[in-house]
């Protein structure tokens, strides 16, 4: 197990560097640059800019300098936001995304698991149909529709919650619900399906045959197996939630990483793009690893040797 973890952790570094390199090539291939504007720059001014940011050097040496800095953890300064380092920008905006992401995740887990388990236990009951229809609705209605509808009702009609911007706990309510809804719906459906499948499995029949109480069967045996699909979904989902979601962050004007990421691409802000890509890819790889490890705990049949 330990070997497995170390091996996977070691792979993360070259993978991240590969992702950075590919991203860098793509950025360089994209038309336009951070100083492209409606009016063309006089050649002298363009030359000044290139010199200032080292863009006048040969392309391979630019790549070399870039990678040697990145290996040391230094992504340099943003090209768009004068005087701000990439590390500083990520450190500043990630907490906003993480806060909303974690709250939405908790909300989704509570709602999704509860609804899914109860629906599975009371299969074909009115609760099952009701909650699963709601989940279907949650899945089909995208968050850029849910968000504005919530804003309309709670901000513009009832004036309860602010329609946008962070500031105080109250401002997190609408974005967290908007973001969490779709995940809650997913988790509910996955939990129900997983539980239904496991409840019919032989080992559950064995457990019941041994005379265990229904609660014990459920919590000790069924839940562990039934949650595997949920875990494979929620692991990467948590990474995605933490990384920030563009739509919710834009609709609610939250200064999170997702919003900054999109802006950095539109601005052709190369160091910032590379920094965020590296950060997010490592985040996702780590979460995938955590998911793989948790399988071993949930399902005794899975072993990493």
């Amino acid at each position: 197990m330990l070997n497995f973890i170390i091996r996977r952790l070691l792979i993360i570094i070259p993978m991240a560097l590969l992702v950075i390199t590919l991203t860098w090539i793509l950025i360089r291939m994209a038309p336009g640059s951070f100083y492209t504007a409606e009016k063309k720059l006089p050649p002298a001014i363009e030359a000044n800019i290139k010199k200032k940011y080292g863009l006048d050097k040969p392309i391979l040496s630019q790549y070399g300098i870039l990678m040697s800095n990145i290996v040391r953890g230094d992504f340099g300064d943003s090209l768009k936001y004068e005087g701000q380092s990439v590390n500083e920008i990520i450190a500043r905006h990630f907490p906003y995304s993480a806060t909303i992401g974690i709250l939405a995740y908790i909300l989704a887990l509570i709602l999704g698991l509860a609804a899914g388990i109860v629906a599975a236990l009371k299969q074909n009951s009115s609760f099952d149909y009701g909650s699963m229809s709601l989940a279907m609705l949650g899945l089909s209605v995208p968050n850029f529709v849910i968000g504005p509808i919530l804003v309309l009702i709670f901000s513009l009609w009832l004036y309860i919650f602010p329609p946008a911007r962070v500031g105080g706990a109250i401002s997190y309510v609408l974005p967290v619900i908007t973001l969490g809804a779709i995940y809650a719906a997913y988790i509910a459906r996955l939990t129900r399906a997983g539980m239904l499948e496991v409840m019919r499995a032989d080992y559950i029949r064995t457990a019941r045959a041994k005379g265990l109480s229904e609660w014990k069967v459920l919590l000790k045996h069924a839940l562990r197996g039934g949650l595997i699909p949920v875990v494979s979904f929620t692991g990467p989902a948590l990474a995605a939630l933490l990384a920030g979601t563009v739509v919710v962050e834009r609709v609610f004007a939250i200064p999170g990483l997702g919003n900054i990421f999109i802006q950095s691409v539109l601005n052709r802000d190369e160091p910032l793009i590379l920094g965020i890509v590296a950060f997010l890819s490592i985040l996702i790889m780590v979460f995938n690893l955590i998911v793989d490890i948790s399988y071993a705990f949930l399902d005794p049949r899975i072993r990493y040797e």
Partner: protein
Amino acid sequence: MARISFSQFRFVIVSVVLSSFLAGCTSSASNRYWGRTVAPSDNVLRYISGSEPESLDPAFGTGQPEARVYMALYEGLLEYHPKTMEPIPAIAESYEISSDGTEYIFHLRKNAKFSNGDPITAKDFVYTFRRALSPELASRNANLGYYIKYSEAYNSGNMFVQDQNGQFLLKKDFAKETETKASDTPEENSDGKAESAPANFGAPTELQKFLNSPERLTIKASEKERAKDFEADPKLKAAVEGKQLVPVTKENLGVEAVDDYTLRLKLYQPAPYFIQLIPHQLFRVVHQPTIEKFGKDWMRAGNIVTSGAFKLSVHKPYDVLTVVKDPNYWDAANVKLDAIEFYPLEESTTMMNLYKSGRADAVYNHTVPPAWLDEIKQFKDEYMDFPEVANEYYSLSVKKPPMDNLKVRQALSLAINREALAQFRKTPKPLSNFTPDGIFPKYDEVRKKVFGDKLKAQNISVEDWSKQRLFDAEKARKLMTEAGFPVIKAGNGWSCPTFPVDKVTLNYNTQESNKAVAEFNQAQWKQNLGITVQLKNMEWKTFLPFRSSVQYKGIARNAWVGDYMDPFTFLNLFYSPQNDGATGFWDPKYDALLDAANKELDPNKRLEMLAAAEYEILDQQLIIPLLTNATNWMKKPYVKGMYPNPGTLHAWKFVYLEPDQNRWDANAENIMKDGDPLIDEQINRLKATQKPLNTVAE
């Protein structure tokens, strides 16, 4: 001022879904105000300012969102008038212009201070100008200062050439241009004589003598580029060989502190609109000790020292930038707000929600989504619909077929019903010229006269000509047929089977309103000419180089927001071989006309020349003019002293919040005409120190 980023990324679906949704269920029409409108409890303006400022360094940021923040934090020699945007005294109490129009003297007020209490002197402005123009800072706006003597050479890192006797080579001896001129590059007085020393501003200083002597030749510093110039001009090569090269330094610039409170600027040539540029952010004064002490961290809260009516309090990027009234500001007694909160937001639905729920007092320009306009326009106390110094047009690829045919270009232009287009877009006005109508009243008059003279030969009045150019489907079909692409009747409509539709695409940058306009025009061409033009949209920064290098097929969307209040800011777009018109057109005669205009000291004659230049653009139909833009934003009625001026740039010290509901703005249509005693008195007091200029020929 380029529209940097407020238009780039639109969640089209979001907007469509939202606008249709919200438009259907908004407050009843009986409500006088849109959403929650209550008198503010504190003296803080909450303003939605567009994209996150790229920098708090006024010499660096180029966009309007930045400009609006700089106008709170920094002050220049002059400031924009809150209604007309004409320059009014700020740190300079008054200014004079020499009789030949090349020398400017600014008299600074003696009580101006930085936010840390340091006095602001002419030396600070010398530092500011030199810094803005330095190659090391690499400001993208530096070319706005290129009229200042030797600034382009300094900014380009060029060298003077000195012979063994210590004599410098002079530019007039190498009459042929040694380099391709960039746009905005001023041309030298070509009379060759030593330029006369103007004005009696005391005994000439060493720098002044130097600046008034004949212009020195400068050559590129990089060997490689110099070799290119030498190849083009062997005479230059021979003359430079074996001579010493001396770098152009900041001390050579035409910027001088005559004494602590007198600043002198020396230009290459009269540039009548130069004074309009003085309030520009590039020339707003910065604090040298702070910049030198903290390096790139000087803009951080805690370090930053500013010169404007407000100083930085909090900066949370992408969230809020708060400025508070600066007690050290020289005119602090007349600054009415305690603080301004700038919210850097770009999602128009989000800002409308904030505004409607009473959590923002005003929003920046072009923020009301098109689908909401019908409803929003009813709120006349809040909605700002005024002419803007901005146009919208299509550039045509005039060097490639079929657009190389004048008649094809004319036909495509005439086939668009601009009145209908303007109605469809709701706020803009139809445009048949290139420079926007109704923004430069004097120029409009002169233009009418000049065009009238030109049209006499064609036996048509300006009025009829202008009207025809707005829409004339019959003539469009005739021209298209004459061009070799016969338009024939097909059922109820028209068809033009021979027109090479595969060679024409209408290209635009991805944005909801651009798409709507493109589809409208596509339908017009289909309906009136029987031609189906394909549409193609592109992400902003992909689109820009694609358009400026004229790679597009046929038609590309274009628009311009003026940098200053003079038609030259538009006409300049077709100046120089690498011009920004993005059509492939370049005509030395056009350049010569603009050069001559800018050397002309008689304002009326100058405008005539500019109008003649504009006629060229229209006569050759390099573009399809579409619309004069209109401002499109909202403010709560209790926000006063904030006007829909043509650039939507607000001098914040005039803005105040009115708690008394009886004095709130009623009917914004009159906002520019109606006086506000408080503001008028303040402006008059400021203007009192500036004597009318009698040096320039009337």
